[in-house]
């Protein structure tokens, strides 16, 4: 990855309107060459539209799309070297599975030499559909169709791969395998991949960077860890993974206070936040600039991940009642009721009745301050 090179794909102030609806608004994004870039966001937030703008299926109402630093305005889809997998698969209904996959090869030679036929076989193997060459798409199950669409898009070895929820109909195992494959192919060939998914875990697992979109604009664009651990907004905090968001008034700010022996960030200030009648200690982010310093009287919104809550803790202790538990295999998600708020907790063996949970102030992350 060459960071000084121009971004592989860049959207600059792009807006796309459909009549009254604004699907994408003043969107600026840049995707680096060879990057695996993921768009997540609630339904209708403009993910598909963004991909369509990149693929030239739509023209921006305003703004510009650039590939490798050069404007591609007016360049038709077939000349953009993009591979696309649509949400509805868009398989060619009058072609067999094999013909679908081979279609893109009629415009270019298969990457890596070989014959078209070999390439088709190779790709169908990749998506676990060996021997299905001659089936008609409409005799396939939903997941099988989706895999054909994946194989078809990969066949010509595009420069940019646009994937619109390409695995929503697949089971976790297959999805993992495929995404690892996609990731591998992507790295091997250096394909820039822009991926839309509604599976946040998937977004975190595969991406170099993730853009969390909302109402046509990204709320945060960052590497997965940052998205998960330092969400920029409350929306991002709750949209990606479980989270407990609390807000209250800051009653005091103490600085350079060593919070806890497990905390290794000694330079952080601690705020005392009163949520309803309970006062909780929250570590403030160290790098917040001085002007934005939190002071008493501010309203602070912060979040604590469920897995950071510990049972029978003594700091920031909340006494709550277990309302339900969901067995998730690896852990159990426990729903607690704390003074009318829902608090989520992870546990291996779910407790029952009334429990006390607490968290290390350093595990709290501030998402808003007023």
């Amino acid at each position, binding site marked *: 990855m060459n960071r000084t090179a121009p971004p592989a794909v860049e959207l600059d102030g792009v807006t796309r309107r459909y009549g009254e609806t604004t699907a994408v608004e003043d969107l600026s994004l840049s995707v680096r060459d060879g990057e695996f870039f993921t768009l997540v966001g609630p339904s209708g937030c403009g993910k598909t539209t963004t991909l*369509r703008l990149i*693929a*030239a*299926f739509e023209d921006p109402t305003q703004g510009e799309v650039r590939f490798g630093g050069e404007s591609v305005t007016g360049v*038709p*889809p*077939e000349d*953009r070297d*993009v*591979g*696309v997998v*649509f949400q*509805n698969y*868009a*398989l*060619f*209904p*009058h*072609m067999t599975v094999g013909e679908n996959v081979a*279609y*893109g090869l*009629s*415009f*270019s030679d298969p990457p890596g030499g070989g014959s078209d036929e070999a390439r088709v076989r190779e790709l169908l193997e990749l998506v676990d559909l060996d021997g299905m060459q001659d089936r008609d798409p*409409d005799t396939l199950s939903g997941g099988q169709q989706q895999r054909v669409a994946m194989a*078809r*898009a990969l*066949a*010509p070895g*595009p420069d940019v791969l*646009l994937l619109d929820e390409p695995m929503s109909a697949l089971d976790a195992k297959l999805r993992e395998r495929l995404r690892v494959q996609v990731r591998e192919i992507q790295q091997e060939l250096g394909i820039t991949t822009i991926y839309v998914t509604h599976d946040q875990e998937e977004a975190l697992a595969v991406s170099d960077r993730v853009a969390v979109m909302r109402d046509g604009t990204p709320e945060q664009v960052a590497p997965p860890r940052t998205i998960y651990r330092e969400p920029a907004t409350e929306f991002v905090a709750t949209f990606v993974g479980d989270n407990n968001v609390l807000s209250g008034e800051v009653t005091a700010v103490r600085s350079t206070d060593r919070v806890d022996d497990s905390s290794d960030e000694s330079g952080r200030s601690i705020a005392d936040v009163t949520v309803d009648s309970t006062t909780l200690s929250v570590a403030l982010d160290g790098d917040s600039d001085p002007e934005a310093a939190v002071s008493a009287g501010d309203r602070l919104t912060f979040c604590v991940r469920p897995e950071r809550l510990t049972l029978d803790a003594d700091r920031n202790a909340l006494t709550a009642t277990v309302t339900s538990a969901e067995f998730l295999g690896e852990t159990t998600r426990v729903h607690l009721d704390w003074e009318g708020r829902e608090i989520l907790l992870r546990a291996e063996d779910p407790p029952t009745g009334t429990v006390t949970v607490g968290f290390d102030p350093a595990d709290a992350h501030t998402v808003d301050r007023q």
Partner: protein
Amino acid sequence: MARDSDGGADGGGGGSTGTANSPSRERGRTVRNTIERRAIVGLAVATIALLLGIFYYPVATVFIDSVLVDGRLTGRVFVSILRDPFYLGEPARLLAGEPVGAVIESVLSSDRRLGVIGFTAYQAALSTVTSVALGLPAAYLLARFEFPGRRTLRSLTILPFVLPSIMVGVGFVATFGRNGTLNAVLGALGLGQVNLLFTLEAVVIAHAFYNAPLVARVTTAAWESVDASAVETARSLGASPVRAFRDVVAPQLYPSVLMGAALTFVFTFSTFPIVLALGGFQLATVEVFVYRLIRDLEYAEAAALALIELGISLGLLYAYLRYEAKHTVRSRGIRPLPRRPLTPPSFSVRELLPRLGLAVYAVVALAVFVAPIASMVLASLSGPEGLTLANYQFLIDRQTTGAAFQVQPWDAVRNSLLFGVASLAVALPMGVVVAVLTTRDYRGRKLVDAVAMAPLAVSGIVVGLGLLRGLVFGVEVGDTRLAVGGGLAIVAAHAVAGYPFVVRTVAPGLEGVDHTLVESARALGAPRARALLDIELPLVWPAVIAGAAFAFAISIGEFSATIVLASGTNQFTMPIAIERFIGRRLGPATAMGVVLLVVTSASFLLIDRLGGDDVGF
């Protein structure tokens, strides 16, 4: 919710006692359900009965003559036709026992004989190709471009369908004749004269006049249901717009284009008045001979010839249906291709070229479709001293002072509309039921489908005679003769003639409906008939309307059955009035023709409006 026991479905499962329905309500529901449950079967039985009574039986009374001569079963009539080079051309010599090699050689030679049947097929094939060639650009225009009046234009494309051949003859002579508009224009442009009339070309163009709109309508519908994302995917895989069209769009249009082509072939294969009016006897088709033989009471040969004609048409339809079954794609048409404005957004070659093509097409269409119709209108307004309303005055006079046994223009209009609406009301359920039956999966369903299409393919002359024998004369039951005629019989005959169009338009629609919708309805307790009525039909409403328009058009244009079945002049329709008003001057007939044009145009606009925003076809 009152559910307190283990599962169990009423009527089938066991053990369920838990529904809160009172016994009487339950019974009411059961009675209604029983009716609904039997609705499809009932309608199917009624349809079959109607078809048997109004079509198959009457037609059989004629066809039987081909094998039952003087009370004895014989195949000799067929043999003699099939051995007759006059009918079958060179292949007849095969049946006459000549060596295959010699026959093939002569078939390949330049002065081969096609025979009447061969020639009929040849001109039908030419007509089909021309109709497709003239229909596809129209489909392109209607499906892919947005412009004011698009919907009206689409509604009116069905008009040629209802025009009596005499009107078309008048229009064509006035347009393509020696002194016609075309030559006037060519002359004004300093180009040479063309002599189109009384050639095969004239006949073929007239056939295209009738059938290209049909091709255009069905193709437009298919084009509108192509999913844009398939095209986009092809583009992203590297296909240019032209390749994407060829590889992705075109294959999804083939079934419809072929359907238009198959129907065109079937219609033009049994063409009759148009060939003789615009071509001449040297271009005589099979139907001309069927007519002559029946007129001369040579029933055996006539029936055999008509049966051969039918066999060829049905064979073709069957082949088409087999193809359709294999190639119709369940369109996931989620997002149709967007229409483009007719005015080019930019002046690039890419934008200009197709529009330029359409402009050229528009000139051709103007000559082929608009000019003949305009000529008819002009003819109705012309007299010996130039423009006049005398012909319309004639209609008014005939209405006010005509004798009771003469055709009255207003009565004809009223009857046409009445029969049109009534036969529509019969043809729709018939067509829908047959469409449902033929879209189910079972062996030989395409055969059933083809047989159900027979009303399209049987010689009109045979149908007329059959109705006379089978219905008007009736059958002896005990002492009384059961005969059928009059308005109800006309309506039934029109419905039988029109329902195949409902089938052909609705069946692909039904096949394309997401089956989970129907399954959801059934899981919610809807019997099959209700699911059809509540879910499928509303969803394929545009196709239903399209079929309705065709069925209505067929009824409006129908001639031979109507005149046989009408019990008096007071049951005559517009085409009969036109025929009656033909005299030494064609003015009165063309005036009546214009009335027909106006009445049917208005009807079609109305029918299409009922179809909501997106009327397919």
